[in-house]
């Protein structure tokens, strides 16, 4: 039996903050995403979304607990994990002084693709994402939308089975954001598992097969939109979200992580 593309067990991340002591950015997070599923991580700013995604993509090491990608523990073999993973964030993270083509070639080489195969793949991507027209200009001169397309091409260059997107539409204009949404949907058809974080409710509502609501480092609820509606008895996602957050606050103030004790 095949391991799920993404699974976390009791994932925790604690930061040392000189002013506030230990801060639990993520606490006991349990999550599982299936193949071909779009999973949305929904939460306000500072809820721990980015930390979770960074742990999954091996940039941060978990304090405790485990994160697995396709059955591989991120702490055991981060290289193998990175090889199977496409990561993308709202701040596109492109090298400003390189051209789009150079960036794609660079990452291709680092992924160990051989030259002929790499060239074919790059040409293919240039067409798929309509980058060709500006493929040889430096990234610093591209518009945000163009940059985002290059960034996407970079993330899917090695055709990863898992895509992790950190607030992919933040900072994009309307057209670029809708391009992004279309892209995420197209991935679902290709059978890729997509995990993305957002604080935009309409996006989550439209795209996600399942939604995880996260606040203050804890996963409050997981389920499809219908399940969440049923759980809270609210119609709109906005209300669902508010209900979930308030429920925790009133129910168990003692259960919140001892982060702010000072």
């Amino acid at each position, binding site marked *: 039996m095949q391991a799920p593309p993404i699974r976390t067990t009791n994932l925790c991340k604690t930061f040392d903050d000189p002013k506030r002591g230990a801060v639990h950015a993520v606490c006991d997070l349990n999550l599982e995403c299936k193949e071909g599923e779009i999973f949305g991580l929904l939460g306000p700013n500072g809820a721990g979304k980015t930390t979770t995604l960074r742990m999954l993509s091996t940039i941060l090491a978990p304090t405790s607990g485990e994160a697995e990608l396709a059955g591989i523990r991120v702490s055991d073999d981060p290289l193998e994990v990175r090889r199977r993973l496409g990561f993308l964030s709202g*701040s596109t993270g492109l*090298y400003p002084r390189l051209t789009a083509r150079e960036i794609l070639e*660079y990452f291709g080489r680092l992924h*160990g693709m051989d030259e002929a*195969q790499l060239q074919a*793949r790059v040409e293919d991507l240039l067409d798929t994402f309509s980058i060709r027209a500006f493929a040889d200009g430096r990234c610093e001169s591209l518009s945000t939308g163009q940059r985002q397309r290059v960034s996407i091409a970079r993330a899917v260059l090695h055709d990863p*089975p898992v895509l992790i997107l950190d607030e992919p539409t933040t900072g994009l204009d309307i057209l670029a954001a809708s391009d992004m949404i279309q892209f995420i949907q197209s991935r679902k058809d290709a059978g890729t598992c997509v995990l993305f974080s957002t604080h935009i409710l309409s996006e989550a509502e439209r795209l996600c097969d399942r939604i995880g609501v996260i606040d203050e480092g804890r996963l409050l609820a997981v389920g499809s939109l219908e399940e969440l509606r049923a759980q809270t008895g609210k119609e709109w996602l906005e209300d669902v979200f508010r209900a979930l957050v308030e429920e925790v606050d009133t129910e168990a103030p003692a259960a919140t992580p001892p982060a702010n004790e000072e």
Partner: protein
Amino acid sequence: MPTSRTLSPLRGALEVARKELTESLRDRATVMYAFVLPICMYPVLFWAILQGVMVVEGLQDRTETTLGIAVAGVPAEEHDTATEGLIHALSPPSEDPDEPAANSLKLIWAPESMDMEQAREWLTKDEEESTEEAPDRPDAVLFLDPLTILHVSTESSSNLASKRARGRLESHASDLRMEAADLAGLEAADLNPISVSTVDLAERGAQGAVVLASLLPLLLVVMAVMGSFFPAVDLTAGEKERGTAETTLLVPLARSSIITGKVLAVGALGMTATALSLFALSLSAEHLLSALPVAVDLSISIPTIAIIGAIPLAFFFSLFVSASLTACASLAATFKEGQALLGPVQMVFILPAMVGIIPGIQLTYSMALVPVINVVLAFRAMLMGQPLYGPYCVTALALALYAWLALRLALHLLSRESVLLAGKTLPLGRLLKTLRGTASTR
């Protein structure tokens, strides 16, 4: 899914270095710093200095100075016959009265007899106090009997006047002696019965190499540090600032490969900048020397051993410098802070280099273990044509070891999350904690 295979760590590091270099060379600022500045700075600087010296000399030649002549007892004018030769030597009559004479020294006779104390007052009195009868205050005073030149060392015109007076008196004395020797049937050489000359037994050109040895090692260290400084900040703190640090970490390479690649890129840029500065410096130094009116024979033959031996040292040293600077710069979150951080760190490299050029300190086995000083000393010894093979090897090994340690440090620092993705530069206390943590995890 396209086949992907694991790159060997070295291949990966080289790939990263190549990309970092491409990126750096695209940056106008880096290109200016690493290429244009080294090439242009020395020629422009030397030219400016040369022209400045010319202008200053030219102005100096045309500055007119005055020399007061004072004597005790006899009225000054009556001394005229006795000291005619002296006076003539001090102020030869101008050939062309219209043309202002160069290096002119106008003589002013003291109106009355003066003793030394009065002459002193004549020279130091304030302008305002001078009365109608008293002649102008001279720039310097020549007191006859005993012959004394009085000058005020804090006044530029006085220095100039006394310099001219001294030179003319000396050359007059030497003329008189020659004449007298001639009359007595002696040769000029007979007046100097003892002559001494020095014979340098070293090869031709060694003299130049020795002059070079006192300067070049320090210069090289400074250039290497300065050359690596900018790329080090750019590839670490600059990357954080540009928001690409995360992207870099996502490549399927071990972090050690990524960091080694960065260090290699920094080292390559630093070495290029050093080589170029050296090239431009030698080119324009020769130009400067040739432009001087006096012919300077500075044929420099750098021993072949120095050139061959310098290469491994330069390689390890620049690796050591770039790894250390990269490690330090990686603590900063923004370019600005990286810059502020590396300023003092630079000093840590340059100060020991200054110790290394003290004459008399030699490369011993224990000295060969001290970083920076060892490379300066080893290089100096080689330039002086006295390679010390044992300490040299120790130096090379020690440098390689330090380079490796610095690389490890960079690696340890950069694999700390708090350093790697820090949004702001760590405060000092926290930095120490991080470092301690690093040490304990080792």
